[in-house]
């Protein structure tokens, strides 16, 4: 069984950040593996626990993103293709998906896994774009993934409940972080990761992206609230009084 996983490097959004001259600055300047993609890698590892197979990572990003490839290899993936773009390349989901698809067309796999969205932009587009480019049946927002004979069975979290889907291979599944808790690489894993094959291919986006960020704005200010301590009954009374008379949300 061959599993391809698309992984992306994203800024550590839990670090403090601010807007400087219209651009975003993260205090730690740290980049991480997109959490949803870590879940996709974990899902692939779990699928191969009692099965012959290999995991091939695909990442489109600047030179710095190789740390992220290393991290996913250290988790246990077998090899990687790094589509190297210049540090300042302008990309959006549409352009990234075309570049990734072009590369993926040259490989065979049974399952292609993606994260359901990027932690930084929350776009959630690339996965289904790839499915369309590659004409694959797909399921998004998977919280469960198993194999049954020749079928991939994905449980996707829909709007009102969970949809259990059976897909023929090859297929694409985008993973939610609610699917699993990704393993932390062991020291041995990290040691081995340095010897795993990483193919680097330079690509130059030949189009300007159709979507562009023009600038960042802080969120609208919230008026600071109040905080009360005290006896439960007293607290309850005070809250109800305020909800009713001040905020007028009880009716």
């Amino acid at each position, binding site marked *: 069984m061959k599993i391809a996983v698309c992984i992306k490097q994203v800024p550590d959004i839990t670090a403090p950040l601010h807007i400087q001259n219209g651009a975003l600055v993260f205090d730690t*300047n740290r980049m991480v593996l997109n959490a949803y993609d870590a879940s996709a890698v974990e899902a692939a590892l779990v699928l191969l626990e009692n099965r012959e197979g290999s995991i091939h990572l695909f990442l489109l990003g600047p030179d710095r993103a190789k740390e992220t490839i290393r991290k996913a290899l250290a988790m246990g993936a077998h090899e990687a293709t790094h589509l190297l773009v210049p540090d300042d390349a302008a990309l959006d989901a549409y352009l990234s998906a075309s570049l990734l698809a072009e590369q993926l067309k040259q490989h065979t796999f049974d399952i292609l896994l993606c994260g359901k969205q990027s932690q930084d932009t929350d776009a959630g587009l690339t996965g289904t774009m790839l499915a369309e480019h590659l004409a694959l049946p797909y399921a998004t927002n998977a919280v469960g993934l198993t194999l049954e004979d020749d079928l991939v069975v994905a449980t996707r979290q829909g709007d009102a409940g969970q949809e259990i889907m059976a897909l023929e291979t090859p297929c694409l599944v985008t993973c939610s972080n609610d699917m699993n808790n990704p393993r932390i690489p062991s020291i041995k894993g990290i040691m081995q990761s340095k010897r795993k094959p990483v193919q680097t291919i330079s690509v130059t986006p030949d189009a300007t992206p159709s979507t562009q960020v023009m600038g960042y704005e802080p969120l609208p200010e919230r008026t600071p609230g109040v905080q009360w301590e005290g006896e439960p009954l007293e607290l309850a009374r005070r809250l109800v009084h305020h909800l009713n008379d001040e905020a007028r949300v009880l009716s």
Partner: protein
Amino acid sequence: MEDKFDCIIVGGGIAGLSAAMVCAQNNLRFLLVERGEFCGAKNVSGGVLWGTELARLVPDYWKAPDAGFERFIRHRRLTFMDEQSAFSLDFKSDHFDQPPYAGITVLRAKFDNWLASKVEAAIEASAFADESFLVPDVLVEELLLESGAVVGIRAGEETFYADCVILAEGVNNLLTRQIGLQPEYVPADYVAVGVKEVIRFDQKVLEDRFQLQDRSGLSNEFVGFASQGVEGGGFLYTNLDTVSVGLVLGMKDLREKGGPKPYDLLDTFKRHPAVADMLRGGESLEYAAHVVSTGDIRALPKEVYADGVLVTGEAAGLLLNSGKAIQGMDYAMHSGILAAEAVAAAKQDEDFSAASLKRYRDALDASYLMQDMRGFQDAVHLLHSPAMFQAVPNLFCDFGRQFFTIDNAPTRKASAMLKDSIRKHSSFLEMMKLGFKARKL
């Protein structure tokens, strides 16, 4: 044991990363293990990294666009404060304005992570590019011993072996204690607690307020009301667009004073008129607390080396808090470098016994670090005397108030004012004793 390393380093703080850099530069096969999610994740410093040694590890570090530091120190201030006033020694000099800068402010999460990336680059350039590793997110739980010598580490279910281990685990040095180099229990007299807040400003506002140019910065230490009667002092350092402000407080004294919360003391310190003026309009980003050594030589481990092991940085108690600065990071860096150099030499001789590793101890003794630590013990003790954080600052401020007040009354002689202030806040005898002690500094 085909996977045996030349050296394993425990801790990816300043000491560990500095040792790692030297290991990479000397083509040693090594493994560095850091328990934080990344290097710097949990590390806390004020902090100014004093000295110029960083330039040795990362030549021309200030030129890189991604440089991990904040500002270099061009303006220094030592402030004595009472409840309302601040009396400062203020020194600013273009002399400080040249690379390699002898003091830079850093924010550890960013700085350590940056230094780690430089170590990664050095590994890549070394002869063992695929055989040396920086591993974050793993806790070393135990040192492995064979006939009394340290031979490796255990982390979870994994064990790794090496010719020797460099301990760079910081002040909470459990592994140093495991092998008996330090008693299990360190008395509260020898530890302090540091609390620190990072406050953000618009960069332009910050630069105007503190008269900073380009990457120049200010370091300001405080004694007196800063610590509100508790032994210790305060600091304020400018970063690129933030200010680090905090207190270092003696643990024992804190307990004896009924355990006021360090955070409450910091809050009061921040509200002091002199400090509040500097912080106005800032947005508090994060708050952190961490144990710090006091630099008291009596708290040092029994020894900083043994068969197959070397102890560096704050794990070895190496820190000097002389009142005009805290030197923990440069000590960590210097000792990390010396330890790795000792390992490289031991590798030449293929001898990792205590006798061979003693060269680390010798190098430490010969360096500025141990000379200063020994030489400034009196300063350390002086700093811990109540006079220094109470009477002296009060006296200075009282004198300042008289000296700088101009009203429609006959002006008195400065010497008379000083006598007054001394009588009010102390005594001539006490001042003479202090002066006698200070004479040795």
